[in-house]
């Protein structure tokens, strides 16, 4: 790999993208809940605009853009780097954060006559902190720097789980926090080992230096296990269902759509950017096998949940499993690797939008019906057509039916599996789709059936529209042109089949 230039044109945009929500967090903290809401809402379009600018710069350059903090190139300084995938993830994060923020106004507005509302302040601060941490993860070029971002992400996400202070949410949050800390320790150990070996934590410098030494594998295994714990890959999912099912809907959307993708993104960085030169087929297969278990277990358990939010949360456990097929299907520099890579990234995006939409819709259902027991959904689709349309479209993507991003992801992954001769991965991919069909049927069939659902409070149109908008994006992903997938290849080592 060529030495990275310290700072490329447009590199300061990366700093801005991280600093903007970080500054928003600080000002919100200083100015109180009423101002915090305004700051958070006001920043979302700016952040979206910045993310789009970054994507345009990357597309125009056809290469990653970078910024060396303090003007010092690595290994002395710390680099921020955005390639195709980073840019796409930043845009995704800005859209979902914006959707969650505008959706949450109804719940977390500070009422008139109240000076300060603890829940509201927590929400508006933490959602900006999550956003800042995610952006730092997407552009961070240094493994320790990324560790800091990962911690920030966890500490910002935990309070969202227990925002309403009920005992069971506190227990869920505590569970999340403790297990995430386990993961952090494991990750940090691996980072320390790498630093001891090579004296740098810069991703591109490490990529040039690493060899297949036992110590390197130990570091990779520890870091990966830590990241899996934070991603809630089965069987490390103990914290996810209670945390995601008990958080407020807007928070669940961000947690399920984005936060678990943050740690997964780091796993991608580790295996595809730090270690791509090493023989990763066997560890990749281990990760894929764990993914397959997650798909089957998560889907079966989703089938058996009585409450909508728990069903959607277990569906996340299953959908996270799909992400891990990227490790066997995109490894190396084969002709099929780009297919697997595109499929993996498409799965991240499709799940992010579809699941965020479904959690927002599930929140509306719970508010409107006063409960989210699936057994009590008879006739609810007639009372809440837009919301159940959202659930249906999101479900379509989870099942992998066209025309949705979920279909596109499965289509790409299956083609990669066929072309690489690893047909074994097609079994969980298809089986998971069938099981998803089962749990989506469980939601929709009673809701669409005849009957009169008792509506306690009609949800506002605007909130229904926000959820539907996210589901429509999940649908629109199916029409991504080839140029989009070429863009995802920018900056990936071995991209486009170049020799190692």
């Amino acid at each position, binding site marked *: 790999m060529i030495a990275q230039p310290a700072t490329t044109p447009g590199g300061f945009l990366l700093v801005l993208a991280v600093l903007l929500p970080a500054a928003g967090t600080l000002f919100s903290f200083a100015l109180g809940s009423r101002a915090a809401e305004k700051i958070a809402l006001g920043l979302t379009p700016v952040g979206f605009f910045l993310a789009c600018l970054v994507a345009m710069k990357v597309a125009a350059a056809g290469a990653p853009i970078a910024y060396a903090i303090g003007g010092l190139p690595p290994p002395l300084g710390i680099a921020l780097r955005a390639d195709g995938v980073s840019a796409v993830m930043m845009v995704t994060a800005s859209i979902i954060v914006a959707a969650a923020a505008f959706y949450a106004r109804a719940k977390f507005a500070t009422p008139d006559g109240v000076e300060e509302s603890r829940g509201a302040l927590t929400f508006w601060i933490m959602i900006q902190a999550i956003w800042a941490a995610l952006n730092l993860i997407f552009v961070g070029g240094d493994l320790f720097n990324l560790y800091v971002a990962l911690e920030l992400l966890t500490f910002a996400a935990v309070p969202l789980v227990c925002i309403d202070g009920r005992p069971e949410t506190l227990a869920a949050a505590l569970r999340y926090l403790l*297990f995430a800390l*386990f*993961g952090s320790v*494991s990750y940090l150990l691996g980072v320390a080992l790498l630093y001891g070996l090579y004296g740098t934590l810069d991703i591109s410098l490490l990529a040039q230096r690493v060899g*297949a030494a*036992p110590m390197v*594998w*130990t570091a*990779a*295994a*520890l870091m*990966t*296990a830590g990241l*899996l*714990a934070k991603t809630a890959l*089965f*069987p*490390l*999912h*103990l914290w996810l269902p209670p945390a995601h099912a008990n958080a407020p809907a807007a928070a669940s959307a961000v947690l399920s759509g984005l936060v678990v993708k943050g740690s997964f993104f780091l796993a991608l960085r580790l295996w595809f950017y730090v270690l791509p030169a090493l023989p990763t087929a*066997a*560890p990749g*297969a*281990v*990760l894929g096998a*764990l993914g397959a278990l997650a798909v089957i*277990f998560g889907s*079966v*358990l989703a*089938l*058996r949940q009585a409450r909508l939010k728990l069903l959607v949360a277990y569906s996340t456990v299953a959908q996270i499993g799909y992400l891990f097929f990227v490790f066997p299907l995109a490894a190396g520099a084969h002709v099929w690797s780009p297919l697997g890579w595109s499929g993996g990234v498409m799965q991240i995006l499709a799940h992010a939008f579809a699941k965020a939409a479904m959690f927002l819709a599930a929140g509306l259902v719970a508010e409107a019906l006063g409960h989210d027991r699936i057994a009590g959904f008879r006739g609810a689709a007639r009372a809440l057509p837009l919301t159940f349309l959202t659930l249906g479209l999101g479900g379509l993507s989870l*099942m*992998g*039916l*066209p*025309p949705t991003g979920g279909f596109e992801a*499965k*289509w790409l992954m*299956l*083609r990669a*599996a*066929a*072309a690489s001769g690893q*047909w074994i991965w*097609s079994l969980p991919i*298809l*089986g998971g*789709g*069938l099981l998803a*069909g089962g749990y989506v*049927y469980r939601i929709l*069939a009673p809701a*669409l*059936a*005849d009957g009169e659902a008792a509506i306690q409070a009609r949800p506002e149109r605007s909130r229904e529209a926000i959820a539907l908008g996210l589901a429509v994006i999940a649908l629109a992903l199916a*029409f991504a*042109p080839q140029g989009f997938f070429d863009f995802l290849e920018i900056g990936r080592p071995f991209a486009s089949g170049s020799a190692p």
Partner: protein
Amino acid sequence: MIAALLVATLAAPAIFLAACFVGKWRERALAWQFLAPAPGLAAGIFGLSHAPVAVDFPGLGLSLTLDPPGALLLAFAALLWMAVTAALWRDRAPGARFGISWLLTMFGGLGVFVAGDLVSFYLVYALVSLPAYGLFAFSEDPEKRRAGAIYLAFALLGEALLLLAFALLAAGEPHGSARIADVMAALPASPWRDAALALIVAGFGMKIGLIPFNGWMPLNYAAAPIPAAAVLSGAGVKAGVIGLIRFLPLGVPMEGWGEALAALGFLTAFYGVAIGLAQRTPKTILAYSSISQMGVIAAALGLGLARGDTGAAGDMAFYGANHLLVKSALFLTIGAVASAGRLSRRSLVLAAALALSLAGLPLTGGALAKLASKAQFASGMPALLATLASIASAMLMTHFLIHLTEMSGEAAEDARRETPAVLIRFWPALALGALLLPWFFADAPGEALSLGKIWDGFWPVAVGVAAALGWRRSGLAAPKIPAGDSIVLYERGFARMMALGPVFETADARLRQWPAAAASLLLIVLALLAAASI
């Protein structure tokens, strides 16, 4: 011109669908949706007399094609959709839920005949399969709900098999094209040829009710109201036929695969009749007749594949098109007979001609269909089996006519209520149309009028009718076989699988304990290390 019509075939239903999203337009869009198949009808008629065309939209990755087999099926399907839709909405205003399901099914049911690349074929194929659930399964009746769940399960399973098949097809195409013509050209040399073919036969076999995947069809048609059963049995099932036509490499002789498919087809043809003879409700008997007829089509396509005969595509499209008209008309006949109470002699003759058309009765469209299949069933074993299939069909259709005239009061009341009045009033015209229309589209209709051919067509029908009447006279009772036959076994297996659910729950509860999770974390580290050191 034809390119524009081809685009409009898909665009018209899409526009109606889009209009449904605007609340105040919805009702009108649904009421006028009978116009949506008009471009498809025009495209089909044009396409019949033109060389195959393909329209590509590289930006969208979309490609449309129209060849004579597709055009014939498209034209007949569009006609059927228009007639039934117009009658249904003239007679009553079905709710939005039913209307949108109808429109989606129609969209898919027209699209499958023109989709030219893997992804769009998959999309329209999903549309013709899944939304049909909404045409019959939203009901308080547990039997209808059961039919709906089983229908969806098979549809989704078929979708999954086809997705994998299509992925293998795409992977076998060296230049990355997803056009059906390109992937099919590359298939014979593809390393995944056998796996892809197996998946294709299983996937489309589910749609056309090949054994052992036939059980959903009788439940579906029994549960569906008559207009829905008419379009599903007529136009819907043909999605599977066009699927086989498009995705079997008919130009290259493949003896093993061809003969296997032919055997499966004939087996299905006789199995359908055998089980159908044990049924008592007219709708269910018609469903088994469909299974049997689709078996004949599969057998002919299999023999075509074995000989590398591309002509089988056009022949079986014609056979399928005839079945499309006749089977839908037969479902409407149930309604017509139910409302008439007693059949006049003239109506009885018409109904009998319609029913026996499926067995190849001379002078009906069925005689032409039989003629179209003779290239595949020319001699030897296939010819014998095809003749036996005709006899068997005649038996089953006689059995149908008997039970049609003996419908219970309740069943007749249901059938009368389900069928739009317009269709009942014009039933004789519809039935005549279904008998005569194929004559305008046959290659050499004159041949069917030769004395030899008339005799060839007549005697199996006579034997079949006589056998059925003799069997009835003998008073021998058929064994009681539930509608859906093998489905009972699948349901039992499914229940056993569902019983595993608590096992998963217990395992999940255990794994989510702290010690287990910590141990898992450690094990993952060790597993990764072990994998890396291999």
